[in-house]
């Protein structure tokens, strides 16, 4: 297996981390700015459209953990939405005089959920069919698409491919030079 330049590992990790935190930033770092900007717009538009459809509880860590895992791919956007959701849940729990998270016992947890969901419905922030499905599909797919972009940025960084690929005739010349 050929040895890789150590700086390529650093570049790959940095590109991957940037791509996770701000969708498209990994590609901008790899000097593929146009692609980075396009990815940034698409993924943010998809995520925040989902959030507009579903409201603050589109990102829900208590009962929708698998969706949260998918949404987590959008990095800073998901963290912001998760934080806003935490604030809202804590404020509702405070108003109701209950804990911010369900208690451990089954009966107590059921009573907690009953009071909490009743309050969500009264405040009109409960997600119901088909809103919940659409909102979580949009935001979750945005996260999953960004996982694909993170992988692409990481692999491009790993092989040290900075900048856009050369135009076809130049690429053919490089191939010929390598072959000859």
């Amino acid at each position: 297996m050929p040895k890789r330049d150590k700086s390529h590992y650093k570049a790959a990790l940095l590109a991957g981390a940037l791509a996770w935190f701000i969708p498209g930033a990994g590609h901008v770092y790899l000097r593929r700015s146009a692609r980075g900007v396009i990815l940034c717009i698409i993924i943010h538009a998809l995520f925040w459209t989902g959030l507009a459809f579903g409201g603050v509880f589109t990102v829900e860590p208590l009962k929708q953990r698998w969706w949260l895992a998918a949404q987590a791919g959008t990095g800073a956007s998901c963290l912001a939405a998760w934080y806003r959701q935490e604030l809202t849940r804590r404020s509702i729990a405070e108003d109701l005089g209950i804990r911010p998270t369900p208690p451990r016992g089954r009966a107590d947890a059921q009573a907690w959920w009953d009071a909490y969901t009743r309050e969500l419905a009264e405040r009109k922030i409960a997600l119901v069919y088909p809103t919940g499905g659409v909102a979580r599909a949009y935001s979750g797919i945005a996260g999953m698409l960004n996982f694909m972009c993170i992988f692409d940025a990481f692999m491009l960084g790993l092989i040290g491919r900075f900048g856009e690929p050369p135009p076809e005739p130049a690429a053919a010349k490089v191939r010929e030079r390598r072959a000859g």
Partner: protein
Amino acid sequence: MSLFLEPVPMGENALWLVVPLCAAVGAAYKTIRVHHLRQLPMQILGLWAYMLVGLVALGVALYLLQHYVA
């Protein structure tokens, strides 16, 4: 401000929302796959049409299966 706090009422017919979703998926996929950005609009259009036709065909097939077989 109720945007991003309260869900937007969408009614029962939310099926049309699959059209922009397919466009976004196609655009993100082709943005990282395409060799030159000049090819991007046509590639996105092709993949978008492919996905929509595929979904419609799948929907028709499942409808026929449910209607005549099940």
